[in-house]
């Protein structure tokens, strides 16, 4: 019994189809709220953690321990006047932040959250190819970023977008290859290796042990996907002001901000599903979701530590790194995965 059927039961008096339709909408809303709250929590955590690292105190005025600071900031962004540049491509300018936001939230819908206590499985929907769908959906986000850069009628924004493109194409291929090697490994044990649930079930031994190289490649790619330091060449505040988001203010900027932190959270979640066994752990049927969250938070903290301690990589060096180091390594990883699978180790 999962959460979806429980909700559908409540609306059972409407008949089978309307009840499930409403149940899907309600659970999608729950997931979106979860995503937003998780991101807000992560922003708070990030600010507190960053403050500790930097010998500061961090937010401590709004609410107890500054817990409501993120909310206050959100409200402030909501109230702010949206100043838009003249000479912009109006439609593209307005659509871009929405694309980032939607791409992120759609990604959250396909995550297998695992079961939690009485609620049962929290997963909204699943498909036999949910892995492919997930990566197709989060591939929408860079399009929004590029669009925002082109539409802003600003040279900083355009340079930022160009860097964004150069960055994206140089890590996406190794990333997809390392995903492929995960699929190859999973195919040895389960019949649905393109399903995220199948991948989790295949990990009686977490893939981080069997494919450490793939984990590193994928983790680096996920950090680059979130375009945070050391791979924040697109935004690079000391060179291009804030890159593609330079001309955005108010709620539209808020969406990009949410996109940045949301990608870190979603990325960490995907890494923990692909390599750390997702919701696997003791008492899966009861605490699966908690395990997933714990693994995700560990990865988030590692990501933030990387963010806080690294200078920015130069864009041409990163492109070199992507094509000349990550790509060959991911091919090696793929071949190794094939051998491991044939040898029956996985």
């Amino acid at each position: 019994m999962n959460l979806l059927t429980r909700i559908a039961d409540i609306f059972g008096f409407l008949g089978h189809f309307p009840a499930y339709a409403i149940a899907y909408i309600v659970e999608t809303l729950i997931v979106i709220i979860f995503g937003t709250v998780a991101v807000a929590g992560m922003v708070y955590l990030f600010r507190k953690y960053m403050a500790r690292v930097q010998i500061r105190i961090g937010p401590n005025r709004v609410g107890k321990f500054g817990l409501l600071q993120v909310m206050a900031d959100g409200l402030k962004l909501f109230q702010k006047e949206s100043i838009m540049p003249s000479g912009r491509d109006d439609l593209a300018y307005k659509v871009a932040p929405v694309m980032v936001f939607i791409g992120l939230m759609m990604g959250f819908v396909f995550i297998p959250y695992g079961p939690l206590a009485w609620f049962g499985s929290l997963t909204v929907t699943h498909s036999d190819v949910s892995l492919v769908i997930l990566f197709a959906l989060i591939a929408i986000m860079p399009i929004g970023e590029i669009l925002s850069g082109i539409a802003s009628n600003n040279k900083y924004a355009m340079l930022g977008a160009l860097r964004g493109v150069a960055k994206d194409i140089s890590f996406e291929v190794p990333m997809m290859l390392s995903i492929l090697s995960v699929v190859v490994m999973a195919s040895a044990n389960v019949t649905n290796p393109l399903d995220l649930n199948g991948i989790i079930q295949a990990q009686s031994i977490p893939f981080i042990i069997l494919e450490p190289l793939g984990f590193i490649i994928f983790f680096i790619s996920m950090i680059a996907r979130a375009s945070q330091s050391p791979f924040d060449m697109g935004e690079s505040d000391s060179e291009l002001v804030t890159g593609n988001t330079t001309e955005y203010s108010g709620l539209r900027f808020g969406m990009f901000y949410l996109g940045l932190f949301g990608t870190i959270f979603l990325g960490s979640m995907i890494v923990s599903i692909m390599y750390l066994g997702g919701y696997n752990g003791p008492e899966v049927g009861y605490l699966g979701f908690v395990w997933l969250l714990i693994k995700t938070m560990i990865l988030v903290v590692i990501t933030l530590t990387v963010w806080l301690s690294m200078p920015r990589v130069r864009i041409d060096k990163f492109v070199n790194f992507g094509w000349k180091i990550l790509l060959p390594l991911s091919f090696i990883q793929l071949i190794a995965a094939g051998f491991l699978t044939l040898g029956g180790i996985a």
Partner: protein
Amino acid sequence: MENGLEKKYIELNMGPQHPSTHGVLRLKLLLDGETVKHVEPVIGYLHRNAEKICELDYYCDSLIYFDRMDYVAAMNMEIGYLEAAEKLLAIEPTERVKWIRVVMAELGRIASHLVWAGAFGLDLGMLTPFFYFFEEREKILNIFTEVSGSRQETNYMSIGGVYQDFNDKIIYKIREFLKQFPKKLEEAYSLFVKNDIFISRTKGIGILEPEVALSYGVTGPMLRASGVPYDVRKDAPYLVYDKLNFDIPISKGKDVLSRFIVRFEEMRQSVKIVQQALDKIPDGPYFNPKAKKSLMIRLRGEGDVYARTESPKGEFGVHLIGDGTVKPYRVHVRSPSFKNLSILPYLSRDVLIADMVAISGSIDLVFGEVDR
């Protein structure tokens, strides 16, 4: 072009309100994609007419305008002015004052280099070390507050003396600072040089040959990083630098990384100097009786003097012309940041934007001093 199209460059305006340009530097860039084809620094956004104002004031009053030139190393600026003014007015500071000034100058140098290192980290996208450096700098500023009552624009020194004598508390505070500082410095240093990304961003970037540096009039750590051991403290000692034992760090690297290393080595040397100076500081009056407060505005100077000192940015020269009245006839400042800035267009030819930012960060610009 081969296809008959005219090649067009992107014109980009960086500053004066850009997050990476130090102070109010404005750079007009010509870009070919990411490559910088030409840089034109535009200065003057912080011009406050300091030299002219100094000509309208008594000799003792001009000091505060020098505080506000290189506002991150106000102590060194004061010494620069006083070296010239005391020569012109023929008032020798007492022995104790000279030692006190050396202590303050070296603490000011450390503070200035700490600010530079923090800002340089920001230029490269490193946020965290900035706070470590400013934490240490704040301790130095606390010492400055103790001696002068003011954090940054200290106005501590005066003609022939200082505002207030060193007492036990001040010396204790400085010693406490020196005790813990080297460890913190090494910690922050390793944060940079042990990071591969940092090395790849700085090594071999912005190579400045010594001949070029000399022909542009570049001084200070910029010049020493190119391998020229030129330091006014050694080559034309002022105050009591000839009685102190310290090295002039140079580097053969000529690049951004070696400028970084040279500045850190200078901080270590400064710690050494302060320690020696504190041990050797003699007793005596803390001002020259010829320049006590009631006589201050009656000081008259005649002649033409030029005095040079080593400020954290480079050779800081002050040219004073007195015509026998209580006010100087002409005040001119040779500011090292201004001369060092002139090398930026040369260094940033055909480099990437990211490297251009690293190079302009490595120059250590303070705009109060460039524009004056």
